[in-house]
């Protein structure tokens, strides 16, 4: 029974690998944010060519979509800019420019994320066998087809969980929770530690010839100048003085709409992406 099981499983693996590599090498099914994180990380670490410009940040920056092949978004939901920087520094060839989101400077790094990506022999297997990478899960394909079928059956657009016009105050509660979080001053020791950690990565990038540009994403205008973002800004300017480092100015928060107080809506993310792209190309 064991032999038959293993032989049949091996056959399934080969068929799956052939199917993916021959019929749909570029096609991937992403069903949640962690898959998105891993898929982005894998694309970055397995690509032979290093993109000229790389963005690192959190879920805030994940919404940035720059239609330029020279830009790569290595932002991760639930993680920080430091995790993206760690991945970049593992490459032999570095990008020419790295854009670093500073909104969530106090967030902890997650070394397990990069360790899981680098763990051998899986790293070797994923590098050479496309079907083992994120976004090629057979069950996710099944879910995708089921969703397509039900959408066609009910002939309505799928709805995102986050409703735009909430009349019950649910969104207000979410924004209020964010406001409460943004009103707490960060632990001075923690923020200094994070800034120094960031400096360590930035120095290494600069030593290896990469330009670093900082940017702060716009958020809900009621949150923009509360104690947390203000303290982060202050710490950033102390550690990376504006006369020595490049900053892309944060646009006026009152001009931007968010879906939950911190994440830009799709339209606003598109608008901000153009803004960031123009500044990034101009900064030297």
């Amino acid at each position: 029974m064991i032999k038959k099981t293993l032989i049949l499983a091996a056959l399934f693996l080969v068929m799956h690998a052939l199917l993916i590599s021959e019929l749909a090498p570029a096609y991937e099914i992403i069903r949640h944010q962690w898959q998105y994180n891993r898929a982005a990380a894998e694309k970055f670490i397995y690509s032979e060519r290093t993109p000229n410009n790389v963005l690192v940040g959190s879920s805030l920056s994940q919404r940035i979509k720059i239609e330029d092949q020279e830009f790569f978004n290595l932002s991760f939901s639930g993680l920080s800019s430091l995790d993206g920087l760690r991945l970049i520094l593992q490459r032999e060839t570095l990008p020419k420019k790295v854009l670093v989101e500073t909104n969530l400077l106090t967030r902890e790094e997650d070394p397990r994320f990069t360790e899981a990506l680098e763990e051998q022999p899986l790293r070797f297997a994923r590098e050479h066998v496309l079907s083992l990478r994120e976004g090629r899960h057979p069950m996710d394909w099944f879910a995708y087809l089921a969703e397509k079928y039900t959408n066609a059956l009910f002939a309505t657009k799928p709805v995102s969980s986050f409703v735009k016009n909430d009349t019950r105050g649910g969104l207000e509660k979410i924004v209020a929770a964010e406001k409460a979080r943004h009103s707490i001053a960060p632990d001075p020791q923690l923020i200094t530690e994070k800034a120094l950690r960031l400096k360590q990565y930035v120095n290494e990038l600069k030593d290896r010839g990469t330009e670093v540009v900082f940017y702060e994403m716009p958020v809900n205008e009621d949150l923009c100048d509360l104690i947390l973002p203000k303290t982060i800004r202050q710490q950033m300017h102390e550690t990376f003085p504006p006369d020595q480092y490049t900053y892309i100015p944060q646009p006026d928060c009152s001009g931007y709409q968010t879906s939950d107080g911190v994440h830009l809506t799709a339209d606003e993310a598109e608008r901000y992406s153009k803004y960031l792209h123009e500044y990034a190309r101009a900064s030297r």
Partner: protein
Amino acid sequence: MLFNSFSFVYLFLVTFLLYYIPRLAKLQVSILIVASLIFYSFDNVALVGLLLFSATVNITTSYLIVYGKSPAKKTIALTGVVINLAALALFKYGPLFGKTFFDPDDSIGELLIKMPLPIGISFFTFEGISLVVDVWRGKELGRKIVALSIFDHAKNTLFFISFFPHLVAGPILKAHDFFPQVGTKYFKDIQWESAFKAIVAGYFLKMVVADNLKDFTFWIEYPYFETIASATLITLLFGYSCQIFADFAGYSLIAIGLARLFGYQFNANFNFPYISTSFKEFWKRWHISLSTFLMEYLYYPLGGNRKGKFRTYFNLILTMILGGLWHGAAWSYAVWGFAHGLALAVERFITDKIQIRSNVIINATKGLFVFSYVTAAWVLFKLPDFSHVAGYFQSIARNFDIGIDRSLNISILVYSIPVIIYHHLYLYRESRAVQSIRRVQYIPYAVMVFLILTNSGSTGSFIYFQF
């Protein structure tokens, strides 16, 4: 160290190879002890000290009970149990007491709140209690369990408590089940097929089902549920119910399979719990090692059902509250235990008074009710804050006009299908269809192996590690 990590695979392979070298046969137990201590200390070496302390207490008290000259055997047994519970209380419940009864700025409060939670403490503490109580209860049993040589007894006890397959998340072994098995094991006696099936099913439930579901049930958390449609909130709960089963049953199956490779038999820990048509049945099928432990070492000593009806209901509720608290140092777990205790008591009250007929429709209704109640209670595991629990159910009651996220719902249902199939295969096990599947069982196992390699979710700790 997680079972689904390469460090564990390497440790296992080295241990397995050494274990069956004929010349090292006399050192088999020692090899497993060393491997288990490496396994336990992988993330935090310091906490091995607590494991060794627990083993020392249990070795000493159990030996003194059986071979000691003192007539105060009950006192010795009680001391052993109290020290075990004190260690559990300090490390596990210290932060809860600190937060509830002390000022966090107070030195005692701060000390209690900062107590580290040693992984697996709930499991090895209960096993220690099982040893002490078992040897105290029966002279003959005591001499079967406790070797005459204190060195042999110490070795066997440390092995019993630390054996890595069950060390950090069970099943909870009973001394009278495990000690008689300790002895030399031979390669030719390995039950390869049953071990293989348990390990494959276990890894599938954990890595494919639970680890994927956790990334979707993330949205149960506050404040996200506030703006999610009612139907999606219900699906999320259903998904979480499947996730918690897959996570825990998966771990138990891996533990059972691994133990079998070393020649040790662990009893089944889950017996298709979601087909239960009563709460009494549910607790005979869910986390069997815990429920039998609570019955044997808590419910029966409290009097069980021998002291009248109201005392029986009280014993049931108290046992379940303590069983709930065992799961975690938060009042939400006590409430969860109370909810189950109350269900058991009310069910007993009703079944004592009314004879309910049994037919397909009635059984299905009862099964649906039990499943729904159990699933609703799982919210207390996911949302320890009571206001968030209330908010979740309020959101279910009022978010009917919010659009349903089909993508999220379908993903949850797809990843829950294996749990549904698993239970239905058992329900219809005598049918021709299931019998014919059994004849070609290598096909579903091959599918599971394939999906483990191509469809695993992001690594997450086993939910029961936090207990």
